[in-house]
């Protein structure tokens, strides 16, 4: 190729590249939300009122009474309530299933508490599992975009569905298997009523993002307890199966339970600091509970 033509093409390429990179940077409203959002504000400035609690370092936590949750009606009520409150899809293929709270065998949940002489009824006992909203979450550590993050205001490990790129690194990092990925568009599998309306207004998710329990953050802010907690307590004999509260507040129900009862967490030695605590049954379960 002719030397001057080469130079022209090289300089043209560099100009295009330079302009392509520089122009978005010059227009702050075009950029991602971390930069330049102040420029979009009207002159007098609308502002966000920061709730008084926003500055506090609150940590929500849950205590699961495994014995009370051995009852199938209690566990089903929890799972049902969560699925309905968050439009969780019911995908039949176990490889692609999406679950926020569900039952697992005791043996899989507490592998360090099971030994050669643990009775089968204990091994098989169903235990409710969900995201532990850890104090030092492994998933948050590995997320390359900050799509999952530990919210400072209340300690909930949140998902920002708008930012998630679906790399599934968080799923590899979570020691508790708490996360589900949308391998396909979930909407065909979301329960709707006769007129096509889903069970709640909670945004469904799109294919290609990871999701998990978010401690019902949308209910907490209006002063309600998480859907699973409310549902469990509504079942006859299920009161106290799930207790929810601020572990950072020494007077809360959760703190009281933690002080009075023996509780364990899952995989404590990994140092993630889970905030879902389990009160283990005092005796071998009757043996008819099945996970």
């Amino acid at each position: 190729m002719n030397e001057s033509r080469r130079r022209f093409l090289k300089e043209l390429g560099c100009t295009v590249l330079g302009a392509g990179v520089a122009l978005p940077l010059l227009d702050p409203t075009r950029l991602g939300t971390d930069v330049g959002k102040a420029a979009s504000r009207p002159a007098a400035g609308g502002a966000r009122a920061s709730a008084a609690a926003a500055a506090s370092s609150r940590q929500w936590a849950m205590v699961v009474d495994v014995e009370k949750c051995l009852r199938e009606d209690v566990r089903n009520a929890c799972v049902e309530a969560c699925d309905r409150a968050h439009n969780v899809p019911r995908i039949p293929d176990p490889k692609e299933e999406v679950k926020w709270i569900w039952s697992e065998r005791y043996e899989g949940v507490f592998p360090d508490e099971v030994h050669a002489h643990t009775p089968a009824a204990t091994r098989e006992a169903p235990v409710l599992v969900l995201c532990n909203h850890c104090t030092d979450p492994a998933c948050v550590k590995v997320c390359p975009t900050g799509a999952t993050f530990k919210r400072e205001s209340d300690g909930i490990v949140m998902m920002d569905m708008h930012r998630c790129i679906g790399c599934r690194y968080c799923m590899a990092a979570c020691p508790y298997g708490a996360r589900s990925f949308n391998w396909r568009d979930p909407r065909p599998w979301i329960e709707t009523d006769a007129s096509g309306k889903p069970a709640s207004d909670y945004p469904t998710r799109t294919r290609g993002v990871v999701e998990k329990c978010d401690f019902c953050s949308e209910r907490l802010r209006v002063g309600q307890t998480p859907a699973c907690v409310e549902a469990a307590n509504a079942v006859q004999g299920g009161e106290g199966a799930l207790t929810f509260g601020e572990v950072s507040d020494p007077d809360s129900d959760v703190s009281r339970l933690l002080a009075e009862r023996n509780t364990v967490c899952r995989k404590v030695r990994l140092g993630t600091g889970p905030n879902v605590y389990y009160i283990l049954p005092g005796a071998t379960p009757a043996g008819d509970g099945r996970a």
Partner: protein
Amino acid sequence: MTDRPRIVLGLGVFLVLAAYPVWSALASSAPPERPELERATDSIGCVEDTLWMKAHHADLLNEWRTSVVREGTRTYVSTSGRTWDMSLTGTCMSCHKSREAFCERCHTYADVTPTCWNCHVPPEGGLR
């Protein structure tokens, strides 16, 4: 350069093709209709004034999302001093009731496809 006539011809063809939207619009007898929006019926007014919202509603929604999801704060104080709950379905759509009669009119005209309703539940129900 013996290629000059060819280059000039090629450039000319390119310019004609590239300007297609302009001269086809000028040439057409009926200009495309401006979108007719079904306005909100109640009188409390929008979060911010209409002109500002036309230009910046997308940025506002982005900010609201960041605030609600990432910071946990949900109360928005508008320029007029009124407080609002930062919610697409709860606040915006409670007045603008239908995405087809409101949102999509302008979006179709401008040929933009925001993906809000892929996840958010539209007010008229139905997961499409």
